[in-house]
């Protein structure tokens, strides 16, 4: 059986780039909602400790933050992967960049999710 990581790395570049463009569009839309939410009250008030916590306690909003986190991590690290591939070439180097960016994506999403989860559950 083909291991899972093989499928990820062997993904066609066109599929990766479609994900790249899709995550960019999704992130722009959701970040716009996120910014508009700041403007639903006085900007400085929206950033008060209690208000920020309330955002995390509101499940749809917390889910939206989670989606933004995933979209930005995928888009950002794929963008970085592309830049690094254009900078230098070589089989070992390119493999390291491909795997490294996937690991970085997972780590960032895991760390961000932990924050969202803990704040949502009232832990600190």
């Amino acid at each position, binding site marked *: 059986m083909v291991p899972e990581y093989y499928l990820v790395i062997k993904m066609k570049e*066109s599929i990766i780039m479609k994900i790249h463009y899709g995550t960019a569009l999704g992130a722009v839309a959701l970040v716009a909602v996120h910014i508009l939410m700041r403007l639903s009250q006085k900007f400085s008030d929206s950033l008060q400790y209690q208000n920020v916590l309330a955002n995390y306690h509101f499940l749809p909003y917390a889910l939206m933050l989670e989606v933004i986190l995933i979209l930005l991590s995928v888009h950002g690290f794929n963008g970085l992967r592309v830049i690094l591939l*254009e900078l230098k070439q070589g089989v070992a180097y390119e493999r390291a960049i491909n795997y490294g960016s996937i690991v970085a994506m997972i780590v960032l999403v895991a760390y961000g999710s932990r924050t969202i989860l803990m704040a949502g559950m009232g832990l600190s």
Partner: protein
Amino acid sequence: MATVEVPKEQKVEPTTPAPAPSKPKTITLRISRFNPSEHAETKFEEFKIPVQKWTTVLEAILYVKQSLDHSVAVRYSCRQASCGSCGMKINGKPRLACYTKVSELESNVITVEPMNNFPIIRDLAVDFKQLFSTHKKMKPFIINEESEVQPGTKEFVQTPKDLEKFLQFSYCIKCGLCNSACPTMATDKSFIGPQGLAQAYRYTADNRDQGKKDRLKIVDQSHGIWRCHFAGSCSDVCPKGVDPAMAIQLLRGYMLGFRK
């Protein structure tokens, strides 16, 4: 027999005076010299060249070779912008030396250097190996099982509209100026480059061709079509009006499902 005498002072004036012969102007030609087997560094040598209004940069270089220093290495063949051999950087911009007049540069100092993004063989001559091998990988021919004309078959009919889809891109002379102007090629040595991608589009868009799937697969790789950032410098320098940047976007259209 009667003779007619013409008075001495009566002169016959031509209706339009003959143009005065234009005076040759002298310019300084700076040639980049580099021999990988001899010098470690590139140096510039300067030559004073007499030029006319119509003198091309290639003619100026050939004047140096003929009269001043025959060791200058330059590649050329047709001298009429057809063979794609004489590409070089002229005053910083990739151009064909045979297609660039000294007068159009509006400078008394002309600097010629080998094209960027190509290995230098010597002086102005660069190595085209990668360009040609990439071009070949794009399958630059019509792929069609029924392309052999047999008795009882006839040629493929194309409407002017069919032709329009790829004609512009078939004017490529493989001079490599686009690749030398491409900012992605400057750092990504594995990038297919605008020349190869434009040719992949040229054959893919040809309605006689059935090799679209193969070609799209070839360009769909980590150093393929997606590495183009649409800087447009390739189209800016192309001497044949091919517009590789547009070809790349059109080829992307197939991959993103905008074109069939």
